[in-house]
């Protein structure tokens, strides 16, 4: 687990970027916290700098949207999901699990990657 910041430092609509093994973007989407790998799977852009709309974040460069719940892109040009991470709040501090969560879509994508 990785301490991100205190809850009052991340109001709704805001994001934080933490650097664990890879950079991770943490979002407050209308009171729900989400975390995904910070780097867009399409090209080098930082999702923590993207526009947040509901629980979707727009890549700041190419305007592909990612669903923060699943990491799945909703449209071109992103092709692969970003990895999602579990977020917990304890004593007013936001923590992110640096180990990525696994979902069905991501397992398939990761498997493809290891083949490629």
């Amino acid at each position: 687990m990785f301490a991100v910041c205190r809850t009052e430092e991340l109001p709704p609509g805001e994001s934080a970027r933490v650097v664990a093994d890879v950079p991770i973007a943490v979002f407050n989407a209308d009171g729900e916290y989400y975390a995904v790998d910070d780097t867009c799977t399409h090209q080098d852009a930082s999702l923590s700098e993207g526009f947040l709309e509901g629980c979707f974040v727009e890549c700041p460069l190419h305007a592909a949207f990612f669903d923060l719940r699943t990491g799945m892109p909703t449209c071109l040009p992103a092709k692969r999901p970003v990895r999602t991470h579990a977020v917990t709040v304890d004593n007013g501090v936001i923590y992110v699990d640096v180990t990525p969560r696994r979902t069905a879509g991501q397992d398939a994508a990761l498997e493809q990657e290891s083949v490629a």
Partner: protein
Amino acid sequence: MRTITVVGGSLGGYSAAQQLRAQGFDGRLVVVGTEVHLPYDRPPLSKDFLKGQIGTADLALGEQQDFDELEAEWRLGEFAARLRPADAGIELYSGEQIGTDGVVIATGASTRVLPGSAGVGGVHTLRTLEDAQALREELTTGRPNVVVIGAGFIGAEVASSCAALGLDVTIVEAAELPLARVLGTRLASACAALHSEHGVAVRFGAGVEELRSAAGHVVGVRLATGEELPADVVVAGIGVQPNTGWLSGSGLSLHDGVLCDSGGVTDLSNVVAVGDVARVFRPDLGRNVRTEHWATANGQPRIAVRNLLDGITNEQHTDMPYFWSDQYGVRIQFAGFVHPEDDVRIIDGDIEDRCFLAQYERDGRPVGVLAFNHPRGFGRARRQLSRPTLDVATS
């Protein structure tokens, strides 16, 4: 429709093919591409690819699985020679005739070639993967002197990449202030300043008189001022022209692009056009607009394909132009329809710090936004732009 042919295998054509399937077209889909490659992304060619930070595999616009899922017949390395208006059939240079019920024209544009450069080694333009590979090879052989002609976004990115490779670069531009017509003088100045700040020599307001060559290879560029710049490599970023030659005689209206209605539909209701080659009527501006941006090629197909499948223009292109450029570590982003005479207001940051958000305003309304290293603010400001209104001033 039983068969639809997409002519063009780059971003616009690929996006159109995807949209056809996404919108339920389950007939025969043929994609004709002049390049031998499956669709790949061009923006990195002048940046990370030229610097050697990414390779060919990183440019792919899809995984093999994505291409397989399209169930398209690919005609790669093939040129469309003719569009037959009677039945919208396509004739390829190879002689193949493709009988088709609908056509998406996505043939893009080609780089303008510097006069007098034919057969002269060391002179490059940059559009395709092969262009970028050839240029990179010359840039990384020895330590060439580079002259970049044209200080638009491609020229500026190439100069930036050459500087990052540690090369001596001079950027030459005929206009006194590059991009002034696009961005207005104040923000164009901020862009222009990046070159000299990063050790790139500039010659603005300097036309090119001739290329000097010896033994079939370029050795210098002589400017209209009489100055001669030594050059082992010359890169010309002097614009593009839409690829419409194959459409002459098709009956389609051609004028610096394929003329389309507000939904991307050409004179023929079963032929639409998207991307760099499409000149689309904008009722909001009262004029036709041809847009050479990545985001346009990516976004237009959704609407054009819908109208093609519907057989009538049910949806219009209303997107605001958007582009980005990475130069000297600065991410430049721009959106909107602006005039050079619009008011410019810095709404966050500072131009001097190379981190700012600027808004273009007309009659007090935001009509454009430009950011240096300010992606978050840009994303928000872009959404607040006013819809354009009838724009008689520039028509």
